[in-house]
């Protein structure tokens, strides 16, 4: 009985050992040598697999990155728009390199042909995809360049960063846009552009891509760029170029002075995330500092503070001196 067990154990062990030796040599022979850095870099990437970098998913990007680092000792031209500079810095550190800082970008809708600005003239009742509507006609407003409003960009977005505004019929980009460029490719009319996010998210751009002459462009849309070149002339930084009756603002050159926005006769130039415009207030404050208005603005704030503190009489006229006095009294009472 014991013999049987011993034979079985011994013979199986021998077979196992023989197989192990064979497998060892096979494994040596057919070994796939993969740079362990690929795994490390992939780990550092956001795993969105959006393809915004131009490679098939994050793994593809990591492979290309490591290959470039090994061969050329540089990762120039590689950028993960989703992760941004932080991710690129981490990836570069793994590879022993330094990533160049890149301005974060965001998608921008260059059309303002809302239902109000560009009224519907014909009804399109085909399938609700821009790709098809674009093939079929110039669009419901008649503008052959404008947004078709069927939302191919929304469908293309993997990050839920773009939605259709029900009232205007135009897409709106949310702040969580990672600039992967999926919507740019999806738009059959090339309306969407990736532009630098700008300081404090402030951006100025021409919200129109209509290359028609002024008359026909204006006929279909109130806020079309009519190619009048006024912005081109006023821009102090040469950031604006005129091409085919259309102005374009170079975001690298633009210093966000907002002069063109005021100048545009059709309001085709848009500014985003700027503080509310206070032309009348701002201009005097810079030229005449001792105007009544700024002072009047400061005083009420202090008054509120005072009333919270000690409830003194608010009878005194609001002036700089009065507020100083109040502050003094506040301090003394605390003491």
């Amino acid at each position, binding site marked *: 009985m014991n013999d049987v067990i011993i034979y079985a154990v011994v013979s199986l062990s021998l077979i196992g050992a023989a197989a192990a030796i064979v497998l060892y040599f096979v494994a040596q022979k057919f070994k796939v040598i993969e740079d362990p850095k690929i795994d490390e870099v992939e780990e550092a990437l956001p795993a969105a697999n959006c393809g915004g970098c131009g490679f098939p998913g994050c793994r593809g990007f990591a492979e290309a990155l490591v290959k470039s680092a090994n061969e050329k000792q540089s990762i120039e031209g590689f950028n993960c728009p989703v992760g941004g500079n932080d991710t690129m810095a981490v990836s570069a550190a793994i590879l022993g390199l330094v990533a160049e800082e890149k301005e974060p970008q965001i998608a921008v809708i260059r059309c303002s042909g809302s239902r109000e600005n560009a009224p519907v003239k014909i009804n399109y009742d*085909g399938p609700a995809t821009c790709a*098809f509507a674009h*093939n079929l006609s110039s669009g419901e407003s008649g503008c052959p360049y404008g947004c078709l409003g069927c939302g191919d960009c929304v469908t293309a977005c993997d990050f839920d960063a773009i939605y259709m505004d029900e009232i205007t019929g135009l897409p709106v980009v949310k702040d969580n846009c990672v600039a992967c460029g999926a919507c740019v490719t999806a738009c059959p009319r090339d309306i969407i552009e990736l532009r630098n996010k700008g300081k404090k998210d402030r951006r100025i751009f021409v919200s129109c891509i209509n290359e028609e002459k002024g008359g026909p462009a204006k006929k279909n849309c109130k806020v079309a760029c009519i190619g009048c070149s006024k912005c081109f002339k006023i821009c102090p930084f040469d950031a604006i170029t005129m091409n085919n009756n259309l102005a374009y603002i170079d975001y690298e050159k633009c210093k966000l002075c907002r002069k063109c926005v005021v100048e545009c006769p059709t309001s085709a130039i848009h500014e985003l995330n700027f503080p509310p415009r206070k032309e009348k207030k701002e201009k005097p404050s810079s030229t005449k500092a001792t105007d009544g208005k700024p002072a009047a603005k400061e005083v009420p704030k202090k008054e509120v503070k005072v009333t919270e503190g000690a409830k003194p009489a608010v009878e005194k006229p609001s002036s700089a001196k009065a507020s100083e006095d109040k502050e003094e009294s506040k301090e003394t009472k605390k003491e």
Partner: protein
Amino acid sequence: MKTFKIGGVHPAENKFSADQAIEVLELPKQVAIPIAQSLGAPSKAVVKKGDEVKVGQVIAKGEAFISSNIHSSVSGKVLKVDEIMDQSGYRRPAVIITVNGDEWDESIDRSEELKTDINLSKEDIIKRIHEMGIVGLGGATFPSHVKLMIPDGKKAEILIINGVECEPYLTADHRLMLEKADEMMIGIQILMKGLEVDKAIIGVENNKPDAIAHLKNLCAKYSGISIEALKVQYPQGGEKQLIDACLGRQVPSGKLPIEVGAVVNNVGTAFAVYEAVQKNKPLIERVVTITGKSLKQPGNYMVRIGTSVNELIEKAGGLPEDTAKVVSGGPMMGKALNAVDVPVVKGTSGILLFKEEEARRVEPTNCIRCAKCITVCPMGLEPILIAQYAENEMFENVENERAMDCIECGSCQYTCPAARPLLDYIRLGKFKVGQIIRNRSKK
């Protein structure tokens, strides 16, 4: 009775204007003649602002092999060469002419006399057809001279003349066959000489018995021409379907009709060829059907190219109140217009006015897998499969399913009980596949 073998539908015919004789539409005050009116390379304008032009004068030259000349359809002064909205809804370059009198170019023979002797040689015929800007008037506007130049190694055996007019509503070709039959017959003989063939068949659907009888009477006078009465079936006017119906030959996928020894031309083209070769008259006018259920006077009009569609509608009794859609071409393959102030061009066979209930699209529901679209497809394709691939952006599969063979006749969408937008998606697929093929050939 003969017809093509696979697929086909039979929509309601609605040929209201069949009894209306062709009327000449009075001269408009202004015409806008688009410079690109045919398939192939766009032509180049050779007139400028302020030029005086006569009827029949060349205003745009097509220099490439597949291109055609454009002639002035009126006499007057060139107002401007500018971009105007054309039937596609996009702005394209056009010559706008203010009409002044009706002065014709001296070389054009305006007499009513029938010229039966064909004096020109084969080469001269082809040259004349090219110069006179003749294009296929069936709707595709393929330059006619190209069709007459048979590629090396191929031989044309037979000329097929398309008098089918399978699209519902349209009656332009029908009236032409009744009223200009003699001219048409001579035109066919000119085409036969140009192709060096001795046989021609005119295919006519048997919903036009008067035309069939009239042409049969004339056949005795013109040798080599015979009439084939065909069963009413859409899309019999398609080139490949007509060859199948008349000859029983199938054109292989991706090939031209010459592969089976046939060349197909429209009856309208044959008439234009007669005028070009015998009378030296360029293609400056064509028969256009204007019709609709609530239109006061549906009719067939001889219209100068470049006339606004609006004038045609006014002539026919004005735009009815209940019009919801204006279509250029037939109801099956035509295209809805964005505006009515667009010019009539060489490819405009009809203007249809639809009421709200006719024009409205039905809300699509889920595919019920009835396979009706596959039964009716005259090209033997699987429309639902191609449409689904296109919808899901699987464009390589779209190509593998032979989407490029689709003739866009719309039978699948017409017959679909779930009202699926099949043709829309197939067109989208074809567009994308076309791009893919072009990119591939670039590499």
